């Protein structure tokens, strides 16, 4: 009974967090929509995204909602199916990057001394390395190709910034008395780092995670766009790559490159909204006075309904 009530409490807390702030609500709606699309989209949209068709470069029509590309493949199907690869890679690579940032930042900030100096040096080196050339270099020279390469490139080039921010925050949290009190009662170092210090940095880590996911999705798209991704699979980045290869812009086939580009931009915007919102919730100084509830609320409500409809349809 207690566990179920705790679960309910967590849900309630989550709901409060989501509705507390408009930016969070808005961002949550967008990101939630894309997540649902990645999860259930390929189940709803039947049809092979790689199947060649007879209609070549058809503009949007009833048969092909977003038209077809140069090989006669259905853009809408590709968009929905490609969401899964793009989002999965972005979230997984972002998550791993954040875990590394957290580990390096907290350990470095807590222990100090030589360990800190070494971690600091590594962090600074990776901070000043130009990311894109390094990413391209890695993507070209890593022995295995495709998605795994992309993931490795993103993690290697993405962790340093977050590690630095978290180290600074850890240095600050370490001076609080409760850390010293934990040491005085006999807690071990790892316990202090992950149970006393880390929970106080959760808001920062959440912001970190969202920022890194944005970075991961953009980096992934960028690398795929220049042809360094897995070209046999379908993702938004490879769609853009083939659109570029097929001179979609010159041929006026806007339906080929615009939808994946827009999706990436929207997802990034949604994550950024979530990020700013969490920042505001965690840092009351950034919070604006609540305005009387207006038309925007209705829009949000409608967005929520739309989300529910998608869920129902699934």
């Amino acid at each position, binding site marked *: 009974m207690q566990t179920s009530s705790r679960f309910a409490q967590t849900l309630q807390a989550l709901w409060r967090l989501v509705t507390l702030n408009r930016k969070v609500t808005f961002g949550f709606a967008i990101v939630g929509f894309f997540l649902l699309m990645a999860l259930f989209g390929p189940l709803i949209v039947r049809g092979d995204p790689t199947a060649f068709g007879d209609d070549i470069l058809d503009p949007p029509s009833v048969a092909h909602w977003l038209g077809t590309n140069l090989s006669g493949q259905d853009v809408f199907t590709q968009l929905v199916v490609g969401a899964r690869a793009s989002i999965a890679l972005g979230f997984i690579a972002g998550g791993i990057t954040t875990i590394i940032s957290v580990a390096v930042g907290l350990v470095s900030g807590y222990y100090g001394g030589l360990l800190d100096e070494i971690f600091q040096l590594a962090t600074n080196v990776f901070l000043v390395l130009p990311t894109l050339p390094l990413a391209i270099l890695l993507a070209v020279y890593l022995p295995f190709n495709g998605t795994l390469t992309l993931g490795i490139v993103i993690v290697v080039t993405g962790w340093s910034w977050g590690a630095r921010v978290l180290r600074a925050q850890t240095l600050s949290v370490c001076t*609080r*008395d*409760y850390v*010293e*009190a*934990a*040491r*005085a*009662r*006999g*807690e071990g170092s790892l316990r202090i780092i992950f149970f*006393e210090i880390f*929970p*106080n940095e*959760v808001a920062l880590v959440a912001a970190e995670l969202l920022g890194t996911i944005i970075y991961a999705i953009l980096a992934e798209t960028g690398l795929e766009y220049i042809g360094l991704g897995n070209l046999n699979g379908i993702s938004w980045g490879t769609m853009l790559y083939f659109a570029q290869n097929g001179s979609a812009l010159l041929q006026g086939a806007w339906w080929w490159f615009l939808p994946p580009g827009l999706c990436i931009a929207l997802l990034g915007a949604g994550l950024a909204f979530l990020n700013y919102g969490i920042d505001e919730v965690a840092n009351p100084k950034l919070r604006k006075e609540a305005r009387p509830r207006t038309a925007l609320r209705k829009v949000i409500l409608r967005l929520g309904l739309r989300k529910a409809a998608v869920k129902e349809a699934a």
Partner: protein
Amino acid sequence: MSIEQPAARDAAAPVLEARNLRKYFPLRQVRVLGGQNVVHAVEDTSLALRPGRALALVGESGSGKSTIARLLARLYEPTSGVIAFRGEPVKPGKGRALRAYRHHVQMVFQDPFSSLNPVHSVRYHLARPLRLHKLVRSKQEETEHILALLNRVSLSPAEQFIHKYPHQLSGGQRQRVAIAHALAARPDVLLADEPVSMLDVSIRLDILNLMLRLKDEEQLALLFITHDIASARYFAEDTLVMYAGQTVEGGPSEEVIQRPKHPYTQLLLSAAPDPDSMLAENGQVKTLPARGEIPSLIKPPSGCRFHPRCPHAMLVCRQRFPERTTFADGHWTHCFLYGDGGAAATPAPTQSSDVSMNDNSVNP
């Protein structure tokens, strides 16, 4: 809560003892010439904590009081000197030995607004020491222990407080939780670093009385750090006065406060709004003019560090720190005004009757 007779003090062997404790903090700076600068936080300090008795450590901010508490809690390693627990010198180390030491020596911090982790509940704070030191076997036993702890620090209804988070508690309630947190490991020694200075004046006495009661009930050896010499008298059997990292005077609280020897203690007392000592002689209000500031501990004054501010400073005070001069009843000071080491040149008249009389004046 009666103050024991001086004879009883010698009877009980000290639980925790510090001998010639010294702590220098290196400064993080790059210097091309010369050695590295250090902060001389604590110099050559010895003290003993006995079961059922409280020792007050009095001094200004920055005089090294908290450093001593942290040294005794082994949050810092001493630069030199020995800490002895039950007569056994403690070896510097980590891991199990350190945890065993912390089982016996616990600390209450100054600021209850930062000594409790905002993300953890009261239950978590009290359950951790119980689990760490393996004092409970089951969840149910743990809950019982925690409720008993909360009741002991007079937080009732305990069933409600156990689920609260620090931000839901007042300053006094938080400090009670912090005290319960320190008591959970069933320590022999409690180090209280200015436990009431951050609290509202109206609840200070409650907390002090709570600690006094716990000291008597559990026979705790208590180190009570304060800058308020009046509360030292109320609270502690013995008092130790620190100035700029040096211990300048010590002994039974009544002695030190009624008959301060060291000019610094006299200055400290004249600054305290205590009617008894202000009207000590001839019914006249005595105040000493305070001059100067506490010196820098990076480059402390030579010899007795109080000499730049001392109204009686002599040439010798600059040259070296005086040896300990002892009076009757275990009262001692480091000051050339009373000679240089050994017993005082003019021993004070028999003190025992005075002490008992003063006892009465403290505890009506």
